[in-house]
């Protein structure tokens, strides 16, 4: 079995930003903030966050903040919870949460909570249990969970639970490993995991492991490296990670590396991208792969960063 080609992945991540020569790379500029989070968290997990100039990143992030307090995916774009959490997470990586007006960001987030406890992603009102996670995780990092109605938020998430133990986007929506991560993460952060049937959900999540060792996100789908993160982190939060075959999963992730040019893809032999590179490395971190920093399964940040946020004044 090959090893994790750490230096190649660092090189790859640093090079992604410079690529402006293909349609495929520029067409994702509206979610550059998510890209920054994926890339920089990977660098930190690999112990190489100092490979780039943090001031430049922080200045750019602050230019993406909207007057409402929310963050956009790039300069001049509209704000959304999706990008607000990524912005706050990247600032946390650099230990620069102090550049934020935390109350302003918190007001933006709590302003998106609806009467039934759910969250809209932005002012246009689309509701999704993912947005509940984004709001809860972000307010938790900012020490502002008291700004929202936690009880109602938790009840809304619980209402998205299905007979199979999983969670969907809205009540009655199909279970999906990504949605499950969001719901379980939000319940974990708010100390509400009693809403989860751990054996039942653990069962559903373990059934995501296919013959090759990789994990899929829904029944009958092909395995994909990104579910290494979503399924694994959920299993860890509900204390059932010993139920899957970890060695086979490690092998699957390592087989998705581009060992020549760096980066990780969704499946062996596919084209790499920064999204799957992050989820692959984060998955390996959860699997305690040697040489990687540990990652917190609920906040999706390195454990030392989370400790700094919660245990240091």
């Amino acid at each position: 079995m090959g090893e994790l080609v750490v230096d190649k992945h660092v090189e790859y991540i640093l090079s992604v930003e410079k690529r402006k020569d293909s349609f495929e790379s520029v067409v994702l500029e509206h979610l550059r903030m998510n890209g920054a989070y994926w890339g920089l968290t990977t660098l930190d997990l690999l112990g190489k966050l100092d490979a780039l100039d943090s001031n430049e990143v922080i200045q750019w992030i602050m230019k993406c903040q909207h007057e409402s307090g929310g963050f956009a995916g790039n300069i001049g774009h509209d704000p959304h919870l999706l990008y607000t959490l990524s912005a706050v997470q990247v600032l946390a990586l650099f230990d620069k949460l102090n550049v934020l007006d935390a109350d302003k960001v918190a007001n933006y987030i709590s302003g998106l909570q609806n009467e039934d406890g759910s969250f809209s992603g932005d002012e246009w009102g689309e509701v999704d249990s993912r947005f509940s996670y984004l709001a809860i995780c972000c307010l938790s990092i900012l020490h502002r969970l008291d700004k929202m109605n936690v009880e109602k938020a938790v009840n809304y998430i619980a209402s998205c639970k299905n007979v199979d133990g999983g969670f969907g986007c809205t009540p009655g929506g199909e279970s999906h490993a990504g949605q499950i991560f969001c719901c379980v993460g939000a319940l974990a952060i708010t100390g509400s995991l009693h809403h989860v049937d751990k054996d039942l959900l653990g069962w559903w999540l373990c059934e995501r492991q296919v013959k090759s060792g990789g994990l899929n996100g829904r029944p009958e789908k092909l395995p994909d490296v990104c579910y290494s993160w979503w399924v694994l982190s959920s299993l860890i939060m509900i204390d059932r990670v010993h139920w899957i075959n970890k060695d086979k999963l490690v092998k699957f992730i390592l087989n998705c590396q581009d060992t020549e040019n760096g980066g990780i893809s969704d499946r062996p032999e596919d084209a790499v991208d920064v999204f799957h590179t992050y989820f692959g490395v984060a998955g390996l971190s959860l699997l305690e792969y040697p040489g990687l920093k540990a990652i917190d399964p609920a906040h999706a940040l390195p454990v030392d960063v989370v400790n700094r946020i919660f245990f240091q004044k």
Partner: protein
Amino acid sequence: MREESMISKGNSLNLLDEFELILESDPLIDEVGFIHPSQFVTLNKEATSSLKHEDANFWSRDHKLAISTDVLLPLYNAAKDAFMHAISQYKRHGNLSDASGYASNLESEAMKHSKALLLLSCDFGTAWNFRKLIVSKKQKIMLFSDELLLSALVLSYSPKSEKAWCHRRWVIKMIAGKCSTLQDIAGKESELVEKIAERSKMNYRAWNHRCWLVSYMTTEQVLHELKKSRNWAGLHVADNSCFHYRTRLMLRIMEEHCHKLEDGTSDENNEIYQIWQEELDWIEALIKRYVGREALWLHRRFLSLSWIRHFTTTLGDTSNYRACKSSINGDIGIFMDNELHLANSCSTIPDNDFEDFQAQAMYSATYILWLTKQISDSQGIELPEKPNLGSLETMLNMACPERSFLWDILTRITGKCDEVLKENNC
């Protein structure tokens, strides 16, 4: 790549003009795709009507539009720059009085560019948002309909576009109060999802949209959808999303039924019993015909659990179901015997090299274990007798010895059963 970077900015603007002109000249374009220019020739052979537009960059005919992959990068850059410039102008001057027509001119420019941009970058949220802003200001049904057309067009090249589906839900919610034909819309939307699901398999976003529509449907529509989607599901037995859609419909029917029982407006169980029984029979037939399909077995888990909860009396109720207990009084023992019989008939592996049969054996064994777990977890359970865990163990051993978590679960069930039996004997 080199060629693209050599296209000057002026050329890019011409490209954008050309693109927007094509879009304006045929507002009925219903499909767009990015293709290599060498494929334009093939398209010509297939088309039925006369050519509407063709050069090296675009091809348009029969309300279909193809964009050459060679021009995507400069075209996207031009569309994005034009849009971002237009909205910043609009934000600066858009609130001026409209006497000069300047503001409305800015508005239509930005709308035009946002359309071009979204046909190249389907999840460019700021462009969708701008359209929502303008359309909600005007509140004209015609304009809302245009948004449904545009998002359908975007979905034709990017069927998983989250923002396009989200835009449709926003439009539907906006017209929900004003338009008496909401049920028509729900029906048409459902058809659109089916059309897209046909081309884009296991599309979570599309099916999620269809599940969302259920809350807007009448009871008759729900029953109709259940009937209609059955055929499709039978032809796409690996598409879990379609079976989940049926779960959603059936739960909605069950919910309404329970309300009626609670209100005392009905004590009729036969209809709902029949729906469940038909679905169980149908799934059983599919399971036997299509060997080793996970989605079918998972759907059966749902069907059986809700059947046990609703139609049998020996199982203690959870509070949700107490109010709408059926009077049919099925026996849980008989039901489980039948399920065991089905599982046993599916667990023979004729040839070890044949993966589908191995999968079938695994799904049938885990299906029985899953049901047994659910029953033993239910409060106040009165087991007719200790379930035959020994034979289950044999099944698991044969089908999936490597799935260690199943053994954990089996141990827990055994422990629980022993406890219950001990208490009963005291």
